[in-house]
């Protein structure tokens, strides 16, 4: 066990992928000389050279599309997009090409591409760098969407994502990069949700940056005698429905914590599935704790108010009468 940060864990995963397979290469804005805007790729250019660590022009559509093309051409590209907000410039390529090519071609052309991007708020970078749009991507069939929330998942999810024959989007919550800890063994699982805390009275479902929020809330609730089960979705598409539904069936109450906006959110999808599959086991309505429906404000107090906080989760759980 070594003490490191989420950023280090992700870099280790990238290094491993580059070492394991020659077809792997990295592409993105300022990932080379600059070292990555979140310093995830720092040092990799020196180690692997400019052919495999490729600085791109600020052309999201072209380099994400080129990643798709290179994947079609037999490579295993890992493309970094600075933030999910910027990924909208490549939305055409992700949705119309990456996600659709296998199906449109009747199974002939799969796209073994990994796209990493940062997501989420909490850093006072306002309305064009802070949003959580994972739910939009999770809406689209044909891609796999992951949200590593722990050091282990940052380290462990990349390689299976690279090996996966289909496009995989990895969302790294920007507030997690500095999270430090001992790296435990990683399982390399990209298909199932994880129970981060066991409990009996309520199921709190979270992913990415909100997993910490949920765990903190669970701690507070425990002091008041409420035992919470915290589930980290990990895979946002496909959703591991069985894990959170079976938990809700057992606890009879569920709260979904999602940094996306409430309307049409991934949280809404999770709620629907619980309602569809656990309705007769619910003892209270399923609640959502989401971001305020505003473009992310800059001022600290406003941003805090806009983002889901542990206290909001505690309040939501209490309101269910758990």
């Amino acid at each position, binding site marked *: 066990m070594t003490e490191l940060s989420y950023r280090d864990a992700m870099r280790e995963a990238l290094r491993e992928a580059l070492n394991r397979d020659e077809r792997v290469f990295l592409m993105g804005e300022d990932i080379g000389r600059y070292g990555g805007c979140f310093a995830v790729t720092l040092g990799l250019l020196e180690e692997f050279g400019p052919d495999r660590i490729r600085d*791109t022009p600020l*052309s999201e559509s072209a380099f994400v*599309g*080129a990643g798709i093309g*290179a994947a*079609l*051409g037999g490579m295993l590209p890992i493309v970094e997009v600075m933030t999910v907000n910027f990924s909208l410039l490549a939305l055409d390529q992700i949705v119309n*090409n990456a996600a659709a090519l296998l199906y449109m*071609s009747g199974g002939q052309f799969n796209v073994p591409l990994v796209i990493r991007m940062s997501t989420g708020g909490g850093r006072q970078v306002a309305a064009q760098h802070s949003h959580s749009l994972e739910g939009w991507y999770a809406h689209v069939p044909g891609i796999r969407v992951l949200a590593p929330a722990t050091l282990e998942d940052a380290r462990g999810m990349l390689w299976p994502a690279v090996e996966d024959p289909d496009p995989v989007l990895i969302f790294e919550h920007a507030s997690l990069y500095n999270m430090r800890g001992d790296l435990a063994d990683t399982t390399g699982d990209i298909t199932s949700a994880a129970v981060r805390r066991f409990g009996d009275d309520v199921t709190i479902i979270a992913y990415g940056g909100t997993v910490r929020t949920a765990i903190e809330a669970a701690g507070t609730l425990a002091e008041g005698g409420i035992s919470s089960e915290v589930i980290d979705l990990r895979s946002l598409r496909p959703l591991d429905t069985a894990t959170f539904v079976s938990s809700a069936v057992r606890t009879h109450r569920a709260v979904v914590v999602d940094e996306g906006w409430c309307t049409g959110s991934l949280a809404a999808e999770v709620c629907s599935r619980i309602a569809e599959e656990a309705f007769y086991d619910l003892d209270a309505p399923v609640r959502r704790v989401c971001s305020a429906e505003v473009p992310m404000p800059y001022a600290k107090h406003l941003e805090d108010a806009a983002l889901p906080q542990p206290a909001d989760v505690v309040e939501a759980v209490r309101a269910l009468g758990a």
Partner: protein
Amino acid sequence: MTELRSGGIRPSGIEIDGTHEHAIHLLRQMLRIRRFEERTVQLYSEMRIRGFLHLDIGEEACAVGVMESLRPEDAVVSTYREHGHALARGMSMRAVMAELEGKVEGCSRGRGGSMHLFDAPTRFYGGNAIVGGGLPLAVGLALADHLAKRPVVTVCFFGDGAVAEGEFHESMNLAAVWGLPVLFCCENNLYAMGTALDRYESETDLSLKAASYRVPAWEVDGMDVIAVEEATRAAAESVRGGGGPHFLELRTYRFRAHSMYDPDRYRDKNEIERWKQRDPIGSLSNRLGADGHLSEEDLDGIESEIQAEVEDAVTFAEAGSLEPLSDLYRFVMSESATGGATP
């Protein structure tokens, strides 16, 4: 590095540089496309083909000329007006027709239809129906070859309308800055759907745009299959030899509507008639006839062979089967995928 307009447009007529046998082969290929598409019009009218059906009629020289100069290992990225590209590339007419009729025997199992023809054996990476959307893909395919140091060219077709998309500029730049082996083939038929080039581009000289990215750009008479083939061969070999991306502007014209039928309100009938005088098939066939290399009987023979091929394709498509509904979810994800959860 800018060899702007080094190709140029031939002032008049068709000059047959190679053998007459090869010219007849080119004619046959263009006729296959023409007769195939004429038949699809009828099938569309009878509702056997649905959705959009963008016809290549009038532009056959571009498809045939470009494809003739490629090698089997080269890759092709195409647009939604790609029946000609597919057939000229060597895809089975049966599979293309079956695709148009939505049959599982189709080249995309009936999943794609007219706009999304795919074929792995000929490295045909599809009809892309997002204008400009195929360009980044082609850049990536070329990047893969570049990284693997394979002497392979990726040809990317797009229309004049795509030049207005950001993806055109991003891709042109990225391919140029990385020196990737892409051959950009712009089929300039003067209309982005119903909007004339000079109504949507401030600079209507498209080669100039490519040249501004330091990409060698040539203008070619897209109604002259021999000129297209010649220019493409030169460009492709330059690309293959490490010359980086090249750009061909194929000046052509579609004789029919944007998709199946349209009222043609946006263009003058006389303009269509003028271009029809330069029908790539008629021009080559006349030239071959005038040179005494193609008799009426020869032409009839070719026509009836092609008709047989087309009817065989229709018979094949009609006899084809519909993909079972139980397969609706197949190929959303790869069947060897690690995940097992529901979509």
